[in-house]
């Protein structure tokens, strides 16, 4: 086994590539004047893909190397309780609208996904994989398995949804005159899960807290309701 192969087997190279590419993405993002579609996450991901291709590293080996980062994503989820706690007074005032909007938004996300997938001739397995697209990856994987979908396809669609959500939300909000940070954050959390929440925190603490709220409630509502709802239609 070559020294290079030995180095590749550990997580060190994968982590270094990820952080280096992310920094590269952050520089491009800053130079571009913070254009949403040049977000460091996407620029960084594009750069990582290019580096993996150039160095001939298998994606699955890379993914195993950066597993520590997905573990930390769970820690971040726990940490979301802190901004949520700080905005609790503000959230309590609007508890009923939040609950209704969660149920409405989560149901709408699933129904439009089902409708559009049927319209574009998706197979049943693809359809099932696409239904949980609006919820955060760990919940979506669980739901997809429950439904009988393809986990890789679900993960990919969940990420694509977030990419679309966070790159279009600023424009969409400007066109539709949506200025309330509570509404901006909440819709991002419901429609674009954890990445939408990260984006909302860049806008401010109120948007961030409402996004965390939208993210958690949508995740729970979808995880509980979707498997039983899907059973009714299939």
């Amino acid at each position, binding site marked *: 086994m070559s020294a290079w192969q030995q180095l590749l087997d550990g997580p060190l190279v994968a982590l270094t590539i*990820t952080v280096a590419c992310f920094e590269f993405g952050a520089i491009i993002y800053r130079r571009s004047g913070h254009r949403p579609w040049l977000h460091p996450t996407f620029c960084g991901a594009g750069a990582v893909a290019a580096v993996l291709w150039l160095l001939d590293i298998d994606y699955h080996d890379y993914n195993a190397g950066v597993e520590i980062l997905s573990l930390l994503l769970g820690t971040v989820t726990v940490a979301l309780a802190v901004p949520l706690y700080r905005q609790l007074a503000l959230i309590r005032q609007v508890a009923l609208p939040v609950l209704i909007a969660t149920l409405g938004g989560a149901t709408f996300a699933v129904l439009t996904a089902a409708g559009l997938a049927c319209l574009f001739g998706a197979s049943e397995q693809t359809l099932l994989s696409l239904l949980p697209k609006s919820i955060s990856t760990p919940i979506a994987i669980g739901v997809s398995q429950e439904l009988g979908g393809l986990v890789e396809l679900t993960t990919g669609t969940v990420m694509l949804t977030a990419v679309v959500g966070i790159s279009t939300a600023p424009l969409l909000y400007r066109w539709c005159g949506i200025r309330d940070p509570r509404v901006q954050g909440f819709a991002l959390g419901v429609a674009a899960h954890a990445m939408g929440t990260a984006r909302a925190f860049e806008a401010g603490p109120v948007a961030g807290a409402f996004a965390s709220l939208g993210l958690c409630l949508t995740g729970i509502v979808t995880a509980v309701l979707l498997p039983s709802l899907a059973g009714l239609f299939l």
Partner: protein
Amino acid sequence: MFRGLLLLLSLQCLGEAIKVLTGVVIPGPVIGMLLMLALLMVRGGVPESLDTSTEWLLGRMPLLFTPPSVGLIFLVPSLGGEWGAVLAVAVPGTLLTLLFTAVLMQRLLAARRQPEHDQ
């Protein structure tokens, strides 16, 4: 200075343990978050060490999302004839959901005539 991180990791472990033991479909970290929220409400304040760790972690979220985005790029060649449906669900589906949720939330808030909150 690691007390905040220790608290976060402990609750993450506890959440994971509860998920495994009870077999609920809610992911472990989400259970951990609900426990943390309950803990803060009982305690009535955020300890400084937790505040420091949380701020550091939340600021690193975009980095943590980079690997799954790489996965998305590598998924494209294996989609075959289904890419149209995937794009349709991900692009217009997400735009419609964002818009629907935002407008619904705005209407609901306006109906309760809550004062506008500035950023």
